[in-house]
């Protein structure tokens, strides 16, 4: 009998590439998500400047009754929320490093090795980002832009709403990991659980990098 056959029996989780199934699947999923956000971003760009009535993202608009609407997008506020999301990626990698290096010198009992802290911080920063988004949405509605108003409203709220939904799912995922960490402690064996969550989280961050430039900064 071939020697490889014996090997297979020893490892119950043998894989052809030596990689974990879940990690392969999450990368395939992220590839698929590229097309999802491509469709949303394309639609936003195609409809840019095509709205018949205001308010508009970057220009003021006067309606027939003479009421003046300010440009909708609030760059200072969104710059802050963008910074928050970028920093959440930093604490996410720290969480992963803390779990992967559990028990190693430099990590045991130190701040750097405190995976619970970093997971909680990532979730908290994600939640802060969502808070900013809620504030942004409500203030836009107050200024007269709803999802019904015009093409800009429809495509803007749908695009950023989809991104927000992804962040929400990510926060729930992080909280789940945090509760596992509190309950039984995540060990280096569980690093993969954190890794796939981190990949998803960074991808959502990367999508925001694209949205921030294409939607907010470019007129």
């Amino acid at each position, binding site marked *: 009998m071939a020697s*490889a*056959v014996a090997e297979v029996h020893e490892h119950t989780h043998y894989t052809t590439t030596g990689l974990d199934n879940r990690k392969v699947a999450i990368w395939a999923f992220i590839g*698929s998500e590229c097309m999802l956000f491509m469709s949303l971003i394309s639609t936003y760009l195609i*409809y840019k400047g095509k709205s018949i009535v205001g308010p508009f993202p970057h220009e003021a608009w006067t309606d027939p009754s003479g009421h003046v609407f300010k440009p909708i997008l609030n760059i200072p506020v969104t710059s802050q929320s963008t910074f928050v999301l970028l920093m959440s990626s930093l604490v996410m990698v720290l969480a992963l490093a803390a779990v992967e290096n559990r028990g190693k010198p430099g990590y045991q009992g130190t701040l750097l090795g405190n995976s619970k802290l970093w997971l909680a911080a990532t979730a908290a920063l994600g939640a802060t980002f969502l808070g900013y988004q809620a504030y942004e949405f409500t203030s836009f509605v107050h200024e007269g832009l709803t*999802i*019904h108003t015009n093409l800009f*409203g429809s495509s803007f709220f749908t695009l950023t709403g989809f991104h927000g939904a992804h962040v929400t799912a990510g926060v729930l995922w992080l909280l789940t990991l945090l509760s596992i960490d509190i309950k039984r402690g995540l060990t280096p064996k569980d690093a993969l659980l954190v890794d796939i969550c981190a990949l998803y989280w960074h991808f959502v961050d990367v999508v925001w990098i694209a949205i921030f430039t294409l939607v907010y900064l470019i007129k």
Partner: protein
Amino acid sequence: MATTAATPSYEQTGIWSWITTVDHKRIGALYLYTALFFFMFGGLEAGVIRWQLAQPNQHIVSAELYNQLFTMHGTTMIFLAVMPLSAAFFNFLIPLQIGARDVAFPRLNAFSYWVYVLGGTFMTLPIFFNTAPNGGWFGYAPLTTLPFSSGLNIDFWVMGLQILGISSLAAAFNFITTIINMRAPGMTLMRMPVFTWMSFVVQFLLVLAFPVITIALVFLLFDRFFGTNFYEIAAGADPLLWQHLFWVFGHPEVYILILPAFGLVSEILPTFSRKPLFGYNVVVYSGIMIGFLGFGVWAHHMFAVGMGATADTIFALTTMLIGIPTGVKIFNWIATMWGGQIRFTAAMKFAIGLIALFTIGGISGVMHSSPPADLQQTDTYFVVAHFHYVLFGGSIMGIFGGIYFYYPKITGRYMSEVLGTWHFWCTFIAMNLTFFPMHFSGMLGMPRRIYTYDAGQGWDTFNLISSIGTGLLILSTLIFVVNFLKSRKSGEVAPGDAWGAGTLEWTIPSPPPDYNFAEIPFVTSRYPLWDLKHPERTSGIAHSAPDVMTITDAHATPVHEEMGHKTAAELGIPMPFNTVKPLIAAAALVAMFGGLLFMHTNQFAVAMTITIGSASLFVGTLYAWLTSPLE
């Protein structure tokens, strides 16, 4: 060979074991039965359509019901019949062909099936209440927006497609991971059977094409339920947005429908020609090429909308280009048969039928790639003829061939060759009788989707011939059904290597035991079983020669036949637990979308209660699922 091999070797029996199964072979069988049922249903819808069109000025059905019938015929055949029939083969075959014991995520696989069957039912039932989708399988917006389609019909279509998309996506992630990661030792990518290769390409097409339709449908859903403006022309929306997004999905989708059939014939032809596939590498690379180019040709569905000379030229060129890798495969198959010792089994007849009929459809496809020609042909029966030659003549012929070929592996018994031959010739004649005259009625200007027509336009005879052909097609499918059901009980008992084929799935008993392979094989070439039984056939193809000696006994079929009678427990092979959670999750998901329908009748509270309730059930089940051990 042992005559007891036909006894199903599944260790569990009873309906509950089917509902909770996570075995890829049983899920494959479920897909097969369900998809065949929907195939019959879609066929009957086509029967009514052709009955209506048999003669001028007929009023068998109303215009409204006719709209529902052609919409549901297309939707059913594409999403509920051909794709799931391919999925049946993905499920049953991929793990067997790559030497794995199951797919990467067995429970996700069960989930995909249950979402499909519930979503399919969700889409199909409304036709009995005269509220079936009626906007065409392509559902062009703004026609499908609220002002023009105010009924529930389109809502069922939007929700149904979203649900089916989730099923396809979940399955695709699963198979990508399975093919990348579950191959037996020695099974390099370039040793994979061509069916697995084509399936691999299809999974990427699914994963990249479905998100686009998902978003297009979300826009439509929001327009209908929340008053957004995506397809609202008065608000400045572009009427082409839907068409572009739809065909960015829609064109890869046609390759999703045809490539699995290409894979199946690439297994059948070498087996019955007793020769390895001619130009394996070229077949594989052209499959990958089709996958990539498939994303760059979508606008050839839209030449008539006036995109301008530049866009028309580019898409005409890419469309002509994609004809090349497709044509290359045809020559590979012909060259495979050249000089082979051919056995004309029913499966082989269907495979050769595919080559002939797909070529006709392929050629009329290249005709459409020229915008001036397309402007004459678009939206006429000429196009209907074209895509039925590629989808019926291609996909369905290939799938029938696949069913005759793999039936012994699935059930342990052969299908009747006599009935199979009758089935083939009836189908072949009826298919041409139905669809060939459509080239003429189309060229004479008969538009698609009209529910009746006046006499004296030169279309009468052609329509009558098409309708007679459809009647014969339904009869020939009945021959298949009889054969399928009868052979299950009384067919000749099949050995493990039912046809003298060369790939891994034939090294294990028919039907395979729960665990597939008692010993995980070690693969040294593309046709490991031929290395053993017919080394002369494989002497010219890629091998790792030093491996051959070591491997020979690992492949000895009798060893596997004997072990097939032992249970997984006796062999010490851990098997995944049965679970009902995927079914609960699938039901919750479908209810979640179904609940939104109440938005249509402005019962906002009811809609939110059902949707949020089932969403919580879904998330809860998901947590329970992910925290319970697999095996």
